[in-house]
C-alpha cells in the first residue's frame, strides 16, 4: 500500500559559500541565508552557525536535537509531518531525498527556569574526536546552530520555538536537493510475502514525556496515548520526531529516521519472514494500571496482526522498562516469540573499566525483568574510561552542568571533563543511551 523511494545524497565535505548547493558529495552551505531564515521569528535573539566535522578537536555542547534534512519530492505530505507548521498528511509514500552522513545540529543552553521545571534537561556533549567520540553522533558532519531565545518563554513555547528554528534551517538545506538526481536510491514497500513465512511485528516502544507539552512526537502528538500501528515507511519519512528539551539521544529526530531496526527488518521481509508493521507504544505512563493497559493493548494489536514473532525495542530507560517488560510477557504468553533489543541500563557508572564490564556494576543491568524475557540482545553499555581532554574548539556554549541534582556543579566546556566527577545519574555523552546499537561503546561482541 505504501511505496517509498529514498534518494540518498552522501556528504563527504561541508563548506560555507554561496549559492548553497550539493554537488558530487560536497555540500556548500549559504550560511547568511540560513541564519536569516533561522532569525525569521522575533523570539529568536541570536543564531550562530558553525560547521563541524568528524575527527576535529571539537566539542559540541548543549545539544538539543539532531535532524537529518529531508525533502519530499513526490508523494503526499512533508518530511517530519505535523510539526513546526508542516501539513499532517500521512507520509511514507512517494520519493524523499535525504543526506547521508550529514545533519543539522541544534544547540541551545537551557534557561535556569526550564532546568528547574524539567529535571532531565541536563547538558549533553558530542566530541568529534578523542575518547568521548564513541557514539554515532561523533561520525556525522554538521551544520550546528547555537540558538538563543527570548528569556521569558515558557517551557512549551521554548521547545516549539527551538524546533521551528531547526526545522526551518533543515528545510532550507533539504531544498538544495530539489531538482537533483540522487546518487543512491533505495526502495521500501511491504510487498505481500509468501504465506508460509512467519509473521513478525516490530513493537517500537517510544518514551512519552511525563512533563506535559514536550517530548518526542508521533505526527506532532506528544501526549501519552494507546498504541498506534504505523507503516515503517511513515517512520522513515519522519512521522516520529524529537523535542528540544530532553537530550536523551534515543529521543532525537535523527535516530528515528536512521533507526537500524527498520532497514534490517526490510532486508528480511519476504525472505525470512513477513514483516507486518510497527506498533508504536508510548512508555513512561505514571500509574501501574496505565502501564498494564498499554502493554495489554499492544499485545492485542500484535495478535490481531497475526504475529508469530516480535522484536521489541525501546528508546529510553528507567521505569519505562515496566511496560516494555509487561509487553514482552504478554506477547510470549500469547504465543508470539519475542526478542528484546536493549542497552544494559546500569548507566550510572560513568568510568567503565574492562574489569567492571566483566563483573558488572552493583546494580542489575536491567531495572525490571520478567521470566518470559528470555531472548535479549544487548547493544552494550556505558562510557569511556578516561576523562575527556581539552578540545581546541567548543561549539554551542561555554559551560556545562551535567547533573540535574547538582546544578551548581559546572565546568568549562573546553575541558578537561571528568565525567565521573561531574555527572549524575546519566552519562552526558549524546548517544550513550545507544538503544539501537549504533555506537562503539560495547566492550565485548557476543
Amino acid at each position, binding site marked *: 500500500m505504501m511505496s517509498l523511494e529514498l534518494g540518498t545524497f552522501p556528504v563527504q565535505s561541508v563548506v560555507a559559500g554561496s549559492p548553497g548547493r550539493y554537488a558530487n558529495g560536497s555540500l556548500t552551505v549559504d550560511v547568511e541565508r540560513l541564519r536569516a531564515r533561522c532569525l525569521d521569528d522575533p523570539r529568536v535573539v541570536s543564531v550562530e552557525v558553525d560547521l563541524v566535522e568528524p575527527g576535529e578537536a571539537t566539542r559540541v555542547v548543549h545539544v538539543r536535537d539532531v535532524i537529518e534534512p529531508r525533502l519530499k519530492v513526490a508523494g503526499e505530505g512533508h518530511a517530519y509531518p505535523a510539526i513546526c507548521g508542516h501539513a499532517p498528511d500521512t507520509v511514507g509514500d512517494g520519493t524523499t531525498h535525504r543526506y547521508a552522513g550529514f545533519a543539522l545540529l541544534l544547540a541551545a543552553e537551557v534557561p535556569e527556569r526550564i532546568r528547574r521545571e524539567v529535571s532531565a534537561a541536563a547538558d549533553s556533549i558530542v566530541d568529534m574526536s578523542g575518547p568521548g567520540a564513541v557514539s554515532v553522533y561523533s561520525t556525522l558532519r554538521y551544520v550546528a546552530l547555537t540558538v538563543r531565545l527570548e528569556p521569558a518563554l515558557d517551557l512549551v513555547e521554548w521547545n516549539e520555538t527551538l524546533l521551528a528554528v531547526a526545522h526551518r534551517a533543515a528545510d532550507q538545506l533539504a531544498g538544495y536537493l530539489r531538482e537533483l538526481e540522487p546518487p543512491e536510491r533505495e526502495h521500501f514497500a511491504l510487498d505481500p510475502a509468501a504465506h508460509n513465512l512467519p509473521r513478525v511485528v516490530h513493537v517500537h516502544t517510544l518514551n512519552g514525556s*511525563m512533563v506535559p507539552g514536550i517530548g518526542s512526537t508521533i505526527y506532532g502528538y506528544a501526549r501519552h496515548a494507546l498504541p498506534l500501528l504505523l507503516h515503517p515507511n511513515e517512520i522513515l519519512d519522519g512521522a516520529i520526531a524529537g523535542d528540544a528539551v530532553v537530550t536523551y539521544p534515543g529521543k532525537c529526530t535523527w535516530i528515528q529516521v536512521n533507526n537500524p531496526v527498520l532497514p534490517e527488518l526490510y532486508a528480511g521481509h519476504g525472505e525470512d519472514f513477513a514483516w507486518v508493521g510497527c506498533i508504536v507504544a508510548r512508555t513512561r505512563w*505514571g*500509574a*501501574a494500571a496505565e502501564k498494564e493497559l498499554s502493554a495489554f493493548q499492544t499485545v492485542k494489536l500484535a495478535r490481531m496482526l497475526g504475529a508469530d514473532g516480535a522484536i521489541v525495542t525501546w528508546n529510553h530507560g528507567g*521505569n519505562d522498562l*515496566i511496560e516494555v*517488560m*509487561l509487553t514482552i510477557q504478554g506477547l510470549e504468553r500469547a504465543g508470539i516469540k519475542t526478542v528484546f533489543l536493549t542497552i544494559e541500563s546500569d548507566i550510572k557508572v560513568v568510568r567503565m573499566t574492562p574489569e567492571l564490564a566483566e563483573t558488572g556494576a552493583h546494580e542489575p543491568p536491567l*531495572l*525490571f*525483568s520478567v521470566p518470559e524475557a528470555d531472548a535479549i540482545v544487548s547493544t552494550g553499555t556505558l562510557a569511556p574510561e578516561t576523562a575527556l581532554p581539552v578540545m581546541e574548539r567548543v561549539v554551542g556554549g561555554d559551560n556545562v552542568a551535567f547533573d540535574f541534582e547538582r546544578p551548581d556543579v559546572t565546568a568549562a566546556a573546553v575541558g578537561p571533563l571528568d565525567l565521573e566527577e561531574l555527572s549524575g545519574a546519566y552519562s552526558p555523552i549524546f548517544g550513550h543511551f545507544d538503544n539501537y546499537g549504533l555506537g562503539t561503546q560495547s566492550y565485548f561482541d557476543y
Partner: protein
Amino acid sequence: MVSALPPIALQAGGNRVVKGVKIEHVCGNPSLGSAGDAALRRRIVERCLEALATPVSSPTLFTVEESEEPRP
C-alpha cells in the same frame, strides 16, 4: 514501602509493598480535591499500618481501593 511501581518494589524484595497512586503523586491524588485527597492519603497510611501488622513470608502486595468511601 509505598510504591507507584509495585512490580519493581516486589522484584527488589520489598516484603510489604503498598500500591501507591501514580509516579507523579505516590501517596495521594490531587484530582480528588483537598478533602478527597486527604481521605485517600489517610487510607494509604492506614493500609501501611495494617500491612505492618500482617505477617508475611515473601514479598507481598497490599492494595488500596481509591474509590472506597472514607471510613467513619
